[in-house]
């Protein structure tokens, strides 16, 4: 249970990144969560090569930001459909991740990671580590809240909300789109780097199951907690990530095995997408767009 909470809070960082892409920018980059593998790959390789863990983690986040930048340039300058641009980046990254890692799995158990001090102090799996992870997720949440209410952040919100209007007020929406994708992908990769250190390995396929996790966290969180303003919406996203992990935890406790997890993830997302149709969650208008985006990838 504690481990589920810890993981949920770590994944909350990724969910915040997904939130920026999907909700704020209204950009259908479904595979965004896959960028976490790149963050994990870069951070793990650097740590194994003796780079201090904090620096390696930052480098992991930066690698995600570059991936976001590429997606953004493909979309804006290349005029490639947003969903396709995201998938192209994802496919290319699969090979690049393998190049970075050299093999498909990098163990980190004997390395000095960000989690080592927590583990040595016996804090992992306890209330303190949950507090520390919650603190980390909240710091990022508040940073995003602040950023979105600055002049620049408002122009980013408007880019996702009414592009024609914000261009007529003098904002280069290509630039805001690329910047937001870079930040969002950077957060996702940061999450990947942290998860790799938390679970003690980086695996080239770790991002596959995650494609849904970010989306599910955003949808579930906002369905449960609402999204009246940025402050609540970003909090709901972290809450969604924690709920998601708890669902997985209880599913495992009920006798399902880890191989069933992808099925449970898919069912959870289906439930979160269908429930609004049945009335009580109708207050989420952009779910419809997400559903159509999801339908496109399913094909």
């Amino acid at each position, binding site marked *: 249970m504690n481990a589920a909470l810890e993981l949920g809070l770590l994944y909350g960082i990724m969910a915040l990144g997904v939130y920026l892409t999907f909700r704020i920018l209204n950009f259908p980059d479904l595979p965004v969560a896959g960028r976490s593998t790149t963050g994990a790959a870069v951070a793990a390789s650097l740590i194994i090569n003796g780079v201090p863990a904090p620096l390696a983690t930052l480098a992991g986040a930066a690698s995600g930001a570059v991936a976001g930048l590429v997606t953004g340039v493909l979309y804006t300058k290349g005029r490639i459909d947003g969903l396709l641009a995201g998938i192209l980046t994802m496919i290319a990254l699969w090979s690049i991740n393998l190049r970075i890692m050299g093999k498909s799995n990098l163990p980190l158990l004997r390395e000095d990671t960000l989690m080592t001090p927590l583990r040595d102090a016996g804090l992992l799996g306890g209330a303190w580590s949950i507090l520390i992870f919650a603190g980390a997720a909240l710091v990022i949440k508040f940073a995003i809240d602040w950023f979105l209410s600055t002049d620049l952040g*408002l122009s980013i919100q*408007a880019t996702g909300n009414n592009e024609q*209007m914000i261009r*007529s007020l003098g904002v280069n929406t290509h630039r805001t789109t690329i910047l937001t994708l870079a930040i969002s992908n950077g957060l996702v990769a940061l999450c990947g780097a942290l998860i790799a250190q938390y679970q003690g390995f980086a695996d080239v396929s770790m991002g596959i199951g995650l494609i849904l996790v970010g989306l599910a966290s955003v949808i579930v969180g906002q369905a449960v907690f609402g999204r009246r303003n940025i402050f609540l919406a970003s909090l709901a996203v972290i809450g969604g990530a924690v709920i998601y992990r708890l669902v997985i935890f209880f599913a495992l406790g009920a006798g399902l095995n880890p191989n069933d997890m992808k099925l449970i993830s898919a069912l959870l997302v289906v439930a979160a997408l269908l429930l609004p149709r049945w009335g009580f969650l109708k207050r989420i208008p952009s779910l419809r767009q997400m559903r159509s985006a999801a339908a496109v990838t399913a094909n």
Partner: protein
Amino acid sequence: MLLIENITKTFFPGTVNERVALNDVSLQLNTGDFVTVIGSNGAGKSTLLNMISGKLPIDSGDLAIDGSSVKRMPDYARAAYVGRVFQDPMAGTAPDLSIEQNLALALRRGQRRGLSWGVTHTRRAFFRDELLSLELGLENRLKARVGLLSGGQRQALSLLMASFTQPRILLLDEHTAALDPQRAELVTTLTESIVEKHHLTTLMVTHNMGQALRLGNRLIMMHEGRIILDVDAERKATMSVPDLLAEFAKIKGASLDDRALLG
């Protein structure tokens, strides 16, 4: 101020759908001019505005604001000089953002947007004053989502956002056409007072001939991509809608005759 020289714009060139939207149009606006533009559908009125705002590129000709050519400037850069209100009341505001956030976005027109707070106390006080002039009670709803406002309220807000930073040129693209008569009248009155207050150089496209005669100090009529009539303030003051219609029929008839002769 605004100098338009021999602008031509053709849509779908080289195809069966080829359509000349603007045919060698020249126009000069002096500082403080308030020009109303009328003309039938497809006359090129909206295209003219899209050329000035930079939304569409110009095929040939030149466009200068304050003496320097802005022909190659992208729309978002030109926005520093050009404020615009669209026909669709939904187009000029961001529905999920609050009134004050929308105004904060408009306040930074043409300026760098950095990491300072979008809505500060000073700005909020300024917004409240500006909203007061609309007399719609919006000054008490600064934190309300703009999506909750009516079409008329949103259009009034758009008008404020397009004008309160005093851009060099204000473009109004049939901005009252989508409103019911009462709201349209309100927005028309607001337009008059705002343009007067800031002495804005304004180009207003309208379908409403009465409105075109009532507002502004100059009237131009467009037809098939050309400016076919240019009425100055003196003559405009004495004109009525039937006069305008008669003028239109006369010129249109003449141009048809020309074509018949040439054919």
